[in-house]
Each structure stands twice: as structure tokens, then as C-alpha cells.
């Protein structure tokens, strides 16, 4: 009954949400208007605040580095004028989060709060940075403060993610649903929460509900690569691989981020599309070179190189760098997998324990951990994790690494 009601609610929600193109247009106009205002009065702090915020909001959708750079320059200019302006420190933290400078983002968010920033954004930024730094207990406390001060989509969605990380998938779905309900219909924020809800349903093996949420997000912001990629993930879970491939192609065309290209590459491997696979691999190699300086995509690139025959050294290098900058459970997972693929089972085993520390019900984590533990001789524990992952996401099982991993696994077992 609950499942039916949730399904019907989502179906109706999908009907209720209409394209949010007007919202994007409003943001463009806002940026334009504020830019003119800033040019007329470059030292006006209110305009600096508003323009920076509008640019950072636009970055969420456009991924345009020029916006990010301009926001950063505005913040620095503003802080020269008013070094104790709390809101500017919040914006600085936001900008640093965007650049994956999590330690600095945490310091800036805390500085903003020490200077009197009392709103949801400074608490949200602090919580986000703590999650990325793997400081989960502090992240829970910061999120609790945010929930107690401003309950709504921003705080519910953060709490939902923490519940998921700590193993409470049902509670996470409940809260993310509340986040969707609390958001303004037709808004980019609600579409974002719908994508997260879709992913949570997917993690729970409920691909029909995952599809409805993904479709509702797409109905709200049709051209957004994230929404298209989420529907592709749903199609993968449903075993509709050709459709998934097409959707990943579309997402990667709109926004060729390594995340989408990697998903596309993996699917070409599964479907035996060697020509296209080779092309995507070349693209990922190029993207890896471009990312060397900023390191925004080290995690996904480590995952990619872990799957390449000659890539294990690079995978380990990237995963170690990522773990240093972002010591959360997913970085431990990425390093564990890279080490396993490099044949370093003892070291991989250690990082698996860190990755499983919170009991996160993520099927990718469970697949990796199950395979590594099984290879390390903990057959029962490994099989248990694998069967849990297979029950919820049979189609996401790493290819060629099932019951028989071939020579590599035999070598590992001997080790």
C-alpha cells in the first residue's frame, strides 16, 4: 500500500512539475542586471553579495569556470573592502566547496559563523565540508543545528544523505521525500532533490520509483545533464542498456564531465561496443590530463584507471591523492578498489574496513568490499555483502569480477 501510494504520489508529482526554463531565464536576467549595477558601483557590498551568489547559482547549472572565477574575484574584492563581513565568508566557503578545497571551505564557513552568520547557508556549508572530510559526527551536529534552525529542503536533503551514509536507507528516503515536498515546484532545487530521491530508490532496488523521480526531475529541468544521467542509471538498473547508453551519450554531450563519460565507457564495455569504447577511453585519458591541476575528478578517474589493464598504478596514485584531500568513506573505497586491482590485497583490505565503517548501503561499496573480502579469504562476509548488493542492483555488478575473477583473482588468493 505504501509503495502504491508513493508511486501514485510521484506520478502526480511528475504531472505537477513543469519546465523551469523561466527560472533559468530569470537567473540570467538577474546576473545581467547585477553586473550592470556592479559596474556602476564596484564597491557596493550588497551588489557584490548578490552578484556573487547569482554567479555561484549559475555555476551549479552551467559548470562554466568563468563564472566560478568571477565569483572568486568578487569575493576577494569584497573582503578587501569589508574583511569582517560574515556573508562574504559564507560565499567564500561556497566558492571553495565548488573548487573542492574542503578544508578551506570548512574554515571559511566557521569564520562566517564566528562573525555572526546565523542563516542556513553557513551551517549547510560547514556540514558539507565535514562530510567530504569524513568527519561525520561533526557533520551530524552541524546538520542538526541547521534542521533546528531552518527546516526545509536544504536541511532535509543534507540530513537524508547522512542517514543514507549511516545505513538508514528508509529514513533517508523519508526525509528526501520531505525535501521534495518542501521545495518550490518547478524549481531547480526541487529537481535536484528529485534526482537524489531517485538515486536513493535505486540504492534500495526500487527502480520503478527511481524512474518516476528521475522523470519528474527531467520534467522540471529537461536539459540538465545530471537529470539525464540519473535516468540513464535507472535504465541500467532496469537492464535497458541501449537506452541507458543513449542517455549517457546525451548527458556527456551536454556536459562532458568524467562522471558521465566513465559511465558511458563502462556501458560500451558491457555491450561490446569496442570502437565507441575506445573513443570514450581516449576522451577520459584527455580529461585526466586536464584534471591534473585541479583534481576535481580524481575519484572517478581512479575508478576508470582501476578498470584499465595498464592503469592500476595511475589509479592508485589518483586515489591516494584524493584520500588525502577528501578523506571520506568513498575515497577509502576508491583506494581499496585501486589497490585490489593492482594486486595489493592486504592494503586494499585495510581501506575496505574504513569504507564500510558507517554501514552505508551503497551497492557499489558493497560490491567492491565483497569482492575484496572474498579474495582476502573472508569468504562468508564477502559473499554476504555481494548477495546484498546483487539483491538490489544485479546490473551494477562489476563486469568480469563475479564468482570467477580469472587469473587476477587467483593470483591475489595465492598472495
Amino acid at each position: 500500500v505504501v509503495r502504491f501510494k508513493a508511486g501514485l504520489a510521484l506520478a502526480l508529482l511528475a504531472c505537477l512539475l513543469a519546465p523551469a526554463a523561466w527560472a533559468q531565464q530569470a537567473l540570467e536576467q538577474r546576473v545581467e542586471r547585477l553586473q550592470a549595477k556592479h559596474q556602476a558601483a564596484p564597491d557596493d557590498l550588497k551588489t557584490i553579495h548578490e552578484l556573487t551568489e547569482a554567479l555561484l547559482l549559475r555555476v551549479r547549472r552551467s559548470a562554466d569556470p568563468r563564472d566560478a572565477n568571477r565569483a572568486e574575484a568578487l569575493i576577494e574584492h569584497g573582503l578587501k573592502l569589508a574583511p569582517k563581513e560574515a556573508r562574504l565568508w559564507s560565499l567564500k566557503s561556497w566558492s571553495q566547496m565548488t573548487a573542492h578545497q574542503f578544508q578551506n571551505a570548512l574554515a571559511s564557513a566557521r569564520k562566517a559563523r564566528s562573525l555572526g552568520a546565523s542563516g542556513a547557508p553557513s551551517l549547510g556549508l560547514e556540514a558539507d565540508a565535514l562530510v567530504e572530510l569524513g568527519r561525520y559526527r561533526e557533520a551530524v551536529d552541524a546538520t542538526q543545528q541547521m534542521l533546528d534552525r531552518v527546516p526545509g529542503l536544504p536541511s532535509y536533503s543534507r540530513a537524508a544523505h547522512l542517514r543514507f551514509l549511516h545505513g538508514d536507507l528508509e529514513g533517508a528516503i523519508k526525509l528526501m521525500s520531505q525535501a521534495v515536498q518542501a521545495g518550490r515546484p518547478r524549481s531547480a532545487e526541487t529537481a535536484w532533490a528529485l534526482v537524489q530521491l531517485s538515486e536513493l530508490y535505486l540504492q534500495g532496488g526500487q527502480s520503478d520509483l527511481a524512474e518516476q523521480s528521475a522523470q519528474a526531475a527531467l520534467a522540471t529541468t529537461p536539459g540538465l545533464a545530471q537529470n539525464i544521467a540519473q535516468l540513464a542509471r535507472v535504465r541500467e538498473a532496469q537492464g535497458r542498456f541501449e537506452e541507458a547508453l543513449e542517455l549517457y551519450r546525451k548527458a556527456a554531450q551536454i556536459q562532458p564531465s568524467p562522471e558521465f563519460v566513465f559511465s558511458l565507457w563502462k556501458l560500451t564495455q558491457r555491450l561490446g561496443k569496442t570502437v565507441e569504447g575506445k573513443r570514450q577511453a581516449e576522451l577520459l585519458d584527455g580529461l585526466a590530463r586536464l584534471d591534473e591541476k585541479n583534481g576535481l575528478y580524481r575519484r572517478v578517474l581512479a575508478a576508470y584507471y582501476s578498470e584499465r589493464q595498464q592503469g592500476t598504478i595511475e589509479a592508485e596514485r589518483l586515489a591516494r591523492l584524493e584520500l588525502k584531500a577528501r578523506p571520506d568513506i568513498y575515497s577509502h573505497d576508491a583506494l581499496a578498489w585501486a589497490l585490489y586491482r593492482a594486486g595489493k590485497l592486504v592494503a586494499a583490505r585495510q581501506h575496505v574496513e574504513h569504507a564500510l565503517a558507517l554501514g552505508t548501503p551503497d551497492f557499489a561499496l558493497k560490491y567492491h568490499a565483497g569482492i575484496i573480502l572474498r579474495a582476502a579469504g573472508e569468504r562468508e562476509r564477502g559473499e554476504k555483502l555481494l548477495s546484498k548488493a546483487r539483491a538490489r542492483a544485479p546490473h551494477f555488478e562489476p563486469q568480469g569480477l563475479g564468482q570467477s575473477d580469472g587469473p587476477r583473482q587467483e593470483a591475489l588468493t595465492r598472495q
Partner: protein
Amino acid sequence: MRTSKLAALLFSAWGALSINAVHAASHREAPLIAQDPAADITDTYAFVSPNNPDRIVFILNVIPSQEPSSGPNYFFFDDNVEYAINIDLNRDGVAEDLNFVVRFKTELRNVLAGIGLASPVANVGRPDLPAPLQGITALNGEGSEGLGIRQFYTVTMLKKNRHGHVARDRLEPADGQGPLVAVPSNQGPFTMPDYEGLAAKGIRTLENGIRVFAGQRDETFYIDLGAVFDGPINLRVSPVLSDGQDADDSNNVSPAVDAFSGFNVNTIAIEVPKALVTPTQGTQIGMYASTARPRVTVLRGDKRAKHDDEEVKFDDGSIEAGRFVQVARMANPLVNELIIRFGDKDRWNATEPEQEAQFIDDYRNPSLATVINLLFGVPIPATPRNDLVSALLQYSGPNGGRTSELLRLDLSVAPRLAGDNCTPTTQCRLTVLAHDSAGNPTPDFAGWPNGRRPNDDVTDIALRVVSGVLLGTGNARLGDGVNLNIGAPGTSVTANGIAQNFPFLPTPHDGRNRRHIDPGE
């Protein structure tokens, strides 16, 4: 060729690479700011009923700026929000003597299941569909079959006795019309062929003679919003109106624009017998409206948490979340928008009205006054502005009590009837500052800041009060030029947009025939 294609792809990827990634395993970029329309209070009203001085009306509006034609995207109360009217009866500034709490529960129905279809829209009604789907004419029973989303609600009264004990009483309908159901958005004449008749069925009588209405209404608040907040204050008309323009409650001053013309809101209106809200001291009561969401613990069952969000079962059998966190509050209009400084708005919304002392500097040194002075050359009083503190935060009389941001209503002031224009017996939009076309004062003491009625021109009054008219300075003709709620639909509405009967807000604009009226139309 292949190399150049790859280079082009890499070039286009450069943008993506410089920024962030996407889903759960990556950096999530969760929104930091998001609107919460279902909990966003747009206006609060409290007044003695113009039709019956023995009854007091309290209104809470949420979900702002509803475009009537935005189907299939209609407007609903939120089951997770607690909507409350909070009343102070003993002048202590704490509005916990009498509270009315409204909660919704949404029912979803596939209204086309009977003909083997899945409904693409929430509510269905067409004359050419088979019975009973030929139009929604009722909220319960026959005629309600086309309602695919039906919002049931409850009203709970919490009354504190002199020992501080709170009696909790769920008010049941006393009219034999079935459970309480919110009146849905006005989709159009096919779906709801007699919307006014349908909405009338949403006016319900409860125990104790209380009447209640929950549902969509016309947005009655009128303001040239775009002009007021451009800059701020870039008005289309001279900010100083002539006596004639200002005394005219039935015409807007061209080219001023009623920005909310043609838009709707969701309303909860409660009309209570005066005997239920009799103040224990003097003749004034104080009130504010609030919305709250259940307190959520990040990790369920976390032993470190001081509270849990587990549901609590009450003696009357109802189940609710244990605690609620206030999302928004509203008493006097425009306080959050024009007085509270930017960085404090979240904190202000989360605090109780009696904790207003922490924001008192914003009242004593209002930046709006400086703006008025700079833009219009209007002389403003010296700070601290204790006149604003008295007007907005204290009861009138020698003992104003603690500072508390409440809307105060003197029940001894006789109400005025709705009328097409301001007369000695009908409502005047400028309330206590009203005057005739020759400029002679004709005050109407039954409106804001003595409570607030839907058609009080709070924008013009606020501009004048902030400019210092209560202290004999400022300018008593400042205004945005929008003097009425233009184009209010329905019957029982005066020519200047005042609804004459409970719930005292006009019928909402329907999705098919909505209009936003600009000057000259």
C-alpha cells in the same frame, strides 16, 4: 580529423572539469537556499467581523504568487507543516493563551480508475465525461468524485488556563457535512462549474460556534511590488500623492501596477466568538501566525540527540510528531521584508515574538527611513525610533508590556462595513491616516495597526509611519499609487475588491480566465 574531434570534445569538457561533479558518491552540491512556499506566510489578518461585532476573524495566507493558469501545477497545503494562529489574551506578549493549530492530510485518488485510465491531472471534470466526472461540485460525497487530490484537515484548539495548564481540544465539525476538506485551486469552469458554490461548501461550522475555511483565495494584498523593491523604492508615480489621489480608495494612480493582480494564495481563516478571545486585561489582544515543520533528528535513534522525531500518540488518539520547529512567523506586515536586516531573517523567523528585544536595533534604526530621506528628501525623525517600537512591539496605553512583535487588536473598536470607497461608516484603506479629498482627516480606527483587515493599505501606511508621521514629521501622502485590489473576481465583492463575507477574501481567479490587470486596462 579524429584528433580534432577529440580536441573539440576536450575543449568543451574544460568547463565541466573546472567545476564540480554530480551524484551520491561525489560532491553533492546540495542547495543552500530554497524557498518553502507551503510554509511561507504571505499575510496575516486579525479583525472584528464587519458583519457581526461579536465575532473575531483571524487569517493566515501561504504559498505566494500563485499563477492560476499554471496547470497541472496547482497549489496545496503541506501535510508536514503545522499552521497556527497564536493569541495573547493577558498582555504579557506571549501568544500562548489560545492557539488554533491546523494540520492537513492529503488523499490521492486516481479519479479515472472507473473508466480504466490513469489520470494525467489531479482533478478532473468535464461536461462531456461520463457521470460522476462532469464537474466537481462538492468536497465530500456526491459531486466530489473528480477530486484526485483531496486535502482533509483538522483544527485543534489549545487553551491555557490561569494555572498554566493547556487543554487540547480537537474541534469537530458541528454542521453534519462530513470531514473538513480544503477547497482546491480554481482550475476553471469545466472542472469546477460553480466554484463559488463549491467554495461555500468549504465554510464549515465547528464546535463552540467557530467557523473555518481552508483553501484558495484571490491575493488581496495590493502593492507595486516591482517598483517598491527596485532599488529599493523606484516608484512609478510621484511618491507624494495629491490629497485627491490619496483619498480615492477605488482608483489606482496611473501608471502604478498592482503586482498581485490576477494571482491567488492559499488561506486558512478562522472566525471565533468574541467570548472565546476576551482579554483578561483591558480590551486588546495580540496575535501572530506561524508555520512549523516537525523536528527531525538527523540519525534516527541517535542516543546523543536531545530529542527524537518519533511520533507521539496523544490522549485523543491523534498521532503527531513530537516537536515542531518554527519555519516562519508573521504578525505586522512588512516587518521581515523592510525592518529586519538581511542576515538575520532566518534567525528572526525561528524566534518567538516575545524574543523580539534582540532585534530592537532594527526598529530603532530602520534603514528604510534613511532610504526615504535620501530618495525623496523627506525629513525623518532622529533615532532611536521609539515610535516604531511602541507601534509595532507594544500594547497601547500606559503599560505597553514587554516588547513582542504581535498584531494587536482592540476588540472595543466597532468594525466598519465593506464599501466601494472610504466613508464615515465604511472601511478606509489608510485606516487611522485616512482623509477626504480636501485633506481633512477621516480616521478609521478599525484597521492596521489596530489589527489588520485584508484591504488595509499597509504599504502606504508603513512608508508614512517609517517616515515619522506618528511624531508629526515625515510625509503623510507617501504612497505607491496602488490603492485597491484590482479585478477581484466573484460576487459579494465591493467595487474596490473587498470581500463582504467570511472568509473575507475574494474568490480566486480561475485558471482558464485569469487576467493580470495593467494600468489603463
